[in-house]
């Protein structure tokens, strides 16, 4: 058996209110490619952040043993000195700097504060060659495509004398041929003795490069599969990823009559606003009936938010095509105001960034999307406004001493309720809830589910976007599965299981 290069022992990391990692163990042998797989939020990235010193020593429990010694990393610099280099999912290159400048950013070549540019570019060219790029290191990074930028990231890691390379979703923004090139590069490095850890959602890629696969679920390592001793099939991995019991975490919905189709979207295609050649939503069709909860499940970056926002008065994207029918009649929504007028509401996934005005009170936030209804002659009626705010506070059981409280002072769950109140007050027929329970505790989640049930009981239609499988299964009447901008499956609640949904997604990735 080869030497163990890295061992992470009993790692536990808690954030206020959540245990992100619970007694995680990971062993990586020298010279292997080790894959970490798991659902969104399973704790893969957290684990790598612990390893690289982003969460400094002392903020977690457990030991990191690297190259035979126990390591206490306080900063990324500490771990990089040992040769552990992490490449994050989002590219971290400065577009208006040259490749060479980027590669040695924070690691400049030269003496006594003066940068030796000749050495910088000569070194940079050397590393570029190693990753198979023929560009000059004096090229500006913005001139490169994302595939080549990813290669520059790897060259940058090599320039730091990496012995253990960690790649977090390296192919998530790459097309197929770029992905293939990257994976082949990893295999080439492996032959030269490099050890790598790859985090990926794409099981076909994992199966292609990895020697061992560790499955992470709900903050714990479930199992490690060894390619050389066991047959690794995708179904086998999926089973490890989702194998949990659905418990009674969802309130029952009683006798809700599902009525006519309320909203129908046909052949909806959306392009990226900054890169108009990139298709973000690809020919999607969906419908939702009165009294129905429709779930849209997909991993992050599948295009769910983009789909929802583009339907919501073209709040996202360019070159939008397709038809939108409300109550059987085709409508063209010009802007968000128009969408609200046509009784559509979009409750954002990012309540702090896009949803609430944190410096304002609950009262002011509650009425913001429908201020016109309480401000005849453009002057806000303070009595009505107060009554509305109190009414929704009581209806949604928002825990706060007063509706004059600043939203920024509330807990996540209560903020979410204020956000829901705001959109319920806008009186929509169709509510699109984007990750309605992200980052809130179990109790508050249950209350949000109850609110959703009340909404459909009142004849509203709810589209719930979520990346939590149990939630989608527990709440939806019907489920659409989305991957890479397309719908890859539609299931009724009765027939859907976690395994079916996951394999739908993962297998669709291969065909592309």
């Amino acid at each position: 058996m080869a030497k163990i290069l890295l061992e992470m022992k009993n790692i536990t990391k808690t954030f206020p209110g959540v245990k992100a990692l619970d007694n995680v163990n990971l062993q990586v042998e020298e010279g292997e490619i080790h894959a970490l797989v798991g659902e969104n939020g399973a704790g893969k990235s957290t684990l790598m952040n612990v390893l690289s010193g982003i969460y400094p020593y002392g903020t977690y429990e457990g030991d990191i043993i690297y190259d035979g010694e126990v390591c206490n990393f306080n900063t990324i610099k500490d771990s990089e000195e040992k040769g552990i280099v992490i490449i994050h999912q989002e590219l971290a290159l400065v577009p208006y700097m040259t490749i060479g400048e980027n590669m040695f950013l924070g690691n400049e070549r030269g003496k006594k504060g003066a940068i030796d540019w000749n050495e910088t570019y000569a070194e940079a060219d050397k590393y570029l060659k190693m990753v198979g790029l023929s560009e000059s290191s004096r090229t500006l990074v913005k001139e490169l495509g994302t595939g080549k930028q990813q290669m520059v990231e790897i060259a940058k890691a090599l320039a730091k004398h990496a012995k253990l390379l960690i790649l977090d979703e390296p192919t998530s923004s790459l097309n197929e041929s770029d992905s293939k090139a990257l994976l082949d590069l990893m295999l080439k490095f492996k032959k030269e003795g490099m050890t790598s850890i790859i985090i990926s959602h794409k099981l076909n890629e994992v199966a292609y490069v990895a020697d061992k696969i560790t499955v992470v679920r709900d903050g714990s390592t479930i199992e490690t599969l060894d390619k050389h001793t066991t047959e690794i099939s995708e179904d086998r991995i999926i089973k490890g990823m989702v194998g949990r019991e659905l418990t009674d975490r969802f309130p029952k919905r009683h006798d809700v009559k599902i009525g006519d189709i309320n909203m129908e979207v046909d052949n909806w295609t959306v392009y990226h606003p900054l890169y108009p050649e990139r298709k973000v939503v690809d020919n999607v069709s969906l419908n939702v009936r009165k009294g129905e909860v429709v779930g849209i499940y997909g991993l992050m970056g599948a295009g769910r938010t983009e789909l929802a926002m583009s339907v919501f008065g073209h709040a996202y994207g360019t070159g939008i095509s397709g038809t939108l029918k409300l109550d059987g009649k085709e409508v063209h929504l010009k802007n968000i105001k128009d969408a609200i007028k046509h009784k559509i509401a979009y409750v954002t996934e990012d309540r702090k960034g896009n949803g609430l005005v944190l410096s304002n009170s609950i009262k002011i936030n509650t009425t913001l999307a429908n201020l016109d209804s309480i401000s005849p002659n453009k002057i806000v009626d303070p009595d009505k406004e107060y009554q509305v705010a109190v009414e929704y506070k009581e209806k949604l059981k928002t825990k706060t001493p007063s509706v004059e409280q600043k939203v920024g002072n509330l807990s996540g769950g209560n903020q979410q309720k204020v956000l829901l109140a705001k959109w319920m007050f806008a009186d929509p027929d169709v509510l699109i809830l984007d990750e309605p329970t992200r980052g809130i505790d179990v109790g508050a989640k249950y209350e949000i589910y109850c609110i959703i049930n009340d909404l459909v009981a009142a004849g509203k239609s709810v589209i719930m976007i979520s990346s939590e499988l149990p939630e989608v299964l527990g709440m939806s009447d019907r489920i659409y599965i989305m991957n890479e901008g397309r719908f890859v499956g539609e299931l009724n609640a009765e027939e859907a299981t976690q395994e079916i949904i996951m394999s739908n997604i993962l297998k669709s990735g291969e065909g592309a």
Partner: protein
Amino acid sequence: MEKSKISSFLQKYMMVIALILIMGFFYILTGGKILYPQNVNNLISQNAYVFILAVGMLLCILTGGNIDLSVGSVVCFTGGIGALMMSKGVNMWIAVIVMLVIGLLIGMFQGFWVAYIKVPPFIATLAGMYGFRGLSNVVLNGLTIGVNDETFLKVFGGGAECYVPDFIGSGEGLNLTCIVIGVIGILIFIGLEIKNRVNSKMRGYETKPFINELLWILVISAVAFWLTFKLANHKGIPTALIWIALVVLIYGYITTKTRTGRYLYAVGGNEKATSLSGINTKKVYFIAYSNMGFLAALAGIIVLARMTNAAPTYGQGYEMDAIGACFIGGASAYGGVGTVGGTIIGALLMGVITQGMVIAGIDANYQPVVKGLVLLLAVIFDVLSKKEKK
């Protein structure tokens, strides 16, 4: 009181306390001269432009810490046009309307670039600052043009008779008109507060504890009466105060009671959330900057009247006084937070410091130094108190 209550009280009234302390300091330093009726009167007349510009600036700052650097130049430019028109014998009311319209158009011009083309406000208004300064020179031909239209000076508080005439009293001794107006104002204030409280009680809303409400009414009434008395002792109400009061009341109402006001705070607090609530955020920026141009023209009128002439150098640094007043008054440099009341306190604070130093005979070169320090301290306090909360 609990500790948290004390700290929240301090935070809320910090600048009021600072104002009182600084006034006390200068009271001792100048042997009480700073509170002579004449000086209280001057404080208002001299700083009228700061109050008006600061209120306009507040609306811009609310939208996200955006400032308007051009206001000093716009004050000079509109003043120059007014002076030129009146010197050519144009009716003063027409001149006033033309000045206000030009101010509004300038505001709309800059607002268009800021709101719809997304030119950073700093740059758009820096361009305006140069441009309208230059145009002022062009209009005035580099000269000083005097204004001697009696009505204009009287209405906008310039020249020797920059006070509201005493209709009731004899004009000798205590100014009775001033006292009467002051008392009526105080009674209206008390009436409104009581009506508000009764209304809130009846509908079951939260109200301040009775003792706080009583203290609030007493303190405000006392300060207002004291001010009335001081003013009445020296020729009565400065005309400029009427204009300041109008601006404060109207914009206080707009910012707290209207949809437009609500949108200003919302855009500054979270532009994305506001836009996703179906609100036209571009229009909000446009309104803030258009309004700034309008108020700059009003300030231009007041300055023209006070100086009784227009010169190409007028208005220099006014934008900084206005911006400083807003930030000292508690407006957030990131937008979304700030009140008209706070801004007025901020403007007063700067005015008191300047005047106190002049009366105390301190070298004029130190005035900007002290102003700068006060601004820095106010913002440091603001930043620290926010950090604490987190």
